């Protein structure tokens, strides 16, 4: 049977430079890219759609300048996209509430990555499932659908378990689930023809999260780079011996 799938996408900075003196990150002029784990979620959504039919909608809580990331997801095969503007910094509580407003009704499956590469909180899947009052399948590495049921293999630290759940459900995917397809540039351009809704989030003035400080941990690394492998190995051994 066809499924109506919502896939949640996050855009992250391509490279963040750290100012060595202040240890603060600098994002000026840095491009956005689709978070790697979001790619896996989009890929899985497209595969489910290709196999069972239905519709896959990409939903992103982000910013104006991240529209290319959504286009890329559309080029991968999503049918439409919704970009909710208003994201400023990692606030899982707020993000979950804003996304919840979009996915609370109408979807059989809500797919997303288990944790994003930048803030790494892993809070969105459980928060969303709790808000929606539906089952959560976390860290899925394999999915199969049968009517109103989903059977998933979850990857745990040392073993994997097979679980079964009714739909609708929130499913967070692990990187092992698939190898995402990479759309060529011309397909990304062509995806500008696909429906993409831009909306504004209703961000309350007061939120639970506040960033006090945003710094890279001070590095105690010596950062000695040897380009000649043979000499380098000797030098490294010497230094290691000196340090005991």
């Amino acid at each position, binding site marked *: 049977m066809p499924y109506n799938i919502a896939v949640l996408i996050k855009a992250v900075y391509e*490279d963040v430079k750290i100012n060595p003196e202040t240890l603060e990150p600098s994002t000026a002029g840095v491009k956005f890219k689709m978070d790697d784990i979001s790619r896996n979620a989009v890929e899985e959504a497209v595969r489910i759609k290709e196999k069972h039919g239905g519709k896959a909608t990409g939903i992103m809580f982000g910013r104006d300048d991240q529209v290319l990331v959504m286009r890329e997801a559309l080029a991968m095969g999503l049918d439409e996209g919704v970009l909710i503007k208003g994201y400023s910094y990692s606030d899982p509580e707020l993000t979950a509430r804003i996304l919840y407003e979009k996915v609370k009704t109408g979807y059989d499956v809500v797919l997303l990555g288990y944790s994003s590469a930048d803030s790494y909180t892993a809070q969105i899947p459980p928060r969303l499932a709790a808000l929606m009052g539906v089952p959560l399948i976390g860290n899925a590495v394999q999915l199969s659908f049968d009517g109103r049921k989903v059977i998933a293999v979850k990857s745990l630290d040392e073993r994997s378990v097979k679980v079964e759940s009714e739909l609708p459900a929130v499913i967070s995917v692990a990187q092992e689930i698939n190898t995402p*397809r990479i759309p*060529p540039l011309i397909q990304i*351009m062509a995806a500008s023809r696909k429906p993409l809704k831009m909306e504004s989030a209703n961000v309350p003035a007061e939120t639970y999260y506040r960033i006090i400080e945003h710094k890279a941990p001070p590095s105690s690394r010596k950062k000695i780079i040897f380009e000649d492998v043979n000499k380098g190995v000797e030098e490294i051994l010497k230094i290691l011996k000196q340090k005991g």
Partner: protein
Amino acid sequence: MLTASLCYPEYYGLPRTAFMAIVYVSASVSVLAFFYMLRLRLKARGIGLLEFLKIIFLNYRRWPGLLYDFITHRRLLSQRSASGAAHAVLMYSLLLSLIGTLLVAASQYSELITGTPIFCGSLYLFYTFVMDVTAWALFISSVTAVVFAYRRREIIQRSSLTADIIYLLSFSLLSITGAMIESYRINALYGTSFGYIAFNAYLLRGLRLSWEAYAAVYIFHLELAFALIAFIPMTSIFHPLIAVANYVREERPTGELTKPFDLMSVMQSGSFEVQVGINRTSDIKGFYALELEACQNCYRCQDVCPAHLAGRPLSPTTLISSLQREINRDAPIWDFISEDTIWSCTTCGACVKACPVYIRHTDYIVDARRALVMNMKLDERKNALLLSMSSYDNSFGMSNDNRNSWLSEAGLKKASEIRMVENLLWIGCMGSFDPEARDIVRNFVEILRKAGVIDSYAYLGEEETCCGDPARRLGEESKFQDLAIKNIEIFKKYGVKTIVTICPHGFNTFKNEYPKIDGSFSGIKVKHYVEVIKELIDAGRIKPEASKEVFVIHDPCYLSRHNGIVEPQRSIIRSFAELREPRRSGGNTFCCGAGGSNYWYEVPEKTKISHIRFRELQDTGASSIVVLCPFCNAMLNDASAVLSDGKVKVKDIAEVVNESIK
């Protein structure tokens, strides 16, 4: 015995008017049938007869080169010389027979117009001898050709094989019947007087044909000849005509890939739904489809293919012949070609340069890749390259910030600091990110400094991305063009006059492919650094000191085969050291295994292409291998480490030269 009245007796012993009528009616029917069948054959590929003739005749400027190949038969004789020689003999004997027939016709017309025939006297005797030799040559070569054709029965379609054999045997029949006719005529007219000249007549003197038999053989001979002409377009003997079309159709260098769309126009028009690549046989249309039909499965491409020799699942011969076989059936090419076959190719171009009928195998391969990219059907490694290219605009997936900051320490200026750039040193992805390739750049910059010309050079730094070669050869045409458009903008901004590249791949793509993206680019000169080193030595700015080392040069495909740069590296090395040549060198070099984006992924294989090449170079007994490409450098260094424990040194030409100058 030689008298002026000794002339070719046309229609000897036959009713002249009736036979003239037979000949001219048959000839007209034959020519009409030829064009009718040619039209049918071309129509099957969607090509008009007029269009075909226009292509062939309007490109007359390309004829001399074609004629040279045809006369020398160089592509056929350089490999598989036995079948090549048979082909040459067959082709020449047909040509000589045609000249004989034309002489007869010319003589007839001159007699009609001036009253004197021209095919007389010593010319007549001489050409009679030629024709007698030709008859034997035609007979032997056509029978040999049948043997060669039969040997390839596995790969040739049965119906086509039968037709080919019948056709070839008809040639032998032509030579036999021709000799029979001659023997009747000569023996009746002159007996054995010209036994040494018309030796076939002498040999066949015992045949004693009756007049009826002679007339019948005569008619059979001429009708068979006309029938063979008429049927050319319907048999594989059509291949030389397709070869002519393949040769004259376009002048594109072998290093330049086709351009399936123009990204700039696509962006302006907003219609992104372009058909790219070959997914089904029906995607191969027109001349591109006809091109395939020239293939006669001679295996010359397979013989030189590094992928095939390494045991990868690619034979360019099988690839082309399978496309040829399936072209009339609309089917996904993936029904009969595996993806690994398509990915096995290093785009080295050895097959293209070997093909006697000018098929460009790599066009089909890259087009198949383009379809896989459009359908997003790449595996992890290739996807990783695509992602690096799309996220970072370079093949290493690393930030372009500070990619060349180490160059400032070497004393090279940055383009943004000097605004106008005379000579731009394009460092390339390898030169920027690969530590060993950085040494190549370092050595070259050092040479520029020692030569006192470093101030006329600059580099881009973080503005440098990728030339786009890996994207294009992986099949991601849109990213290639996107990068090219951006790069050309940067070159324009700095008023760049000359681009000097470290990598032959960048050299090739700038030189041959960028002008097709933006016509204004053709004003920029593109050089490979070996050319610059050569110029500096010639100008006396640097002087390498004599060395006792023995070198062997490994020529990069994209420098030497695709772009013909063979001499500079040789003259540089010879000027101060001993140079040995490997089995395959210069334009016939053998790939290191990295080209065509192969550096970034793996294909199932029995042995590594780089190992095959390393052994060839090692066999020369040279102590060092000279490379001129950062990819060759990486591949052969690895091979040397595995196969010789690093005993055979792999050195870049910049390193070799820099070490030899003070």
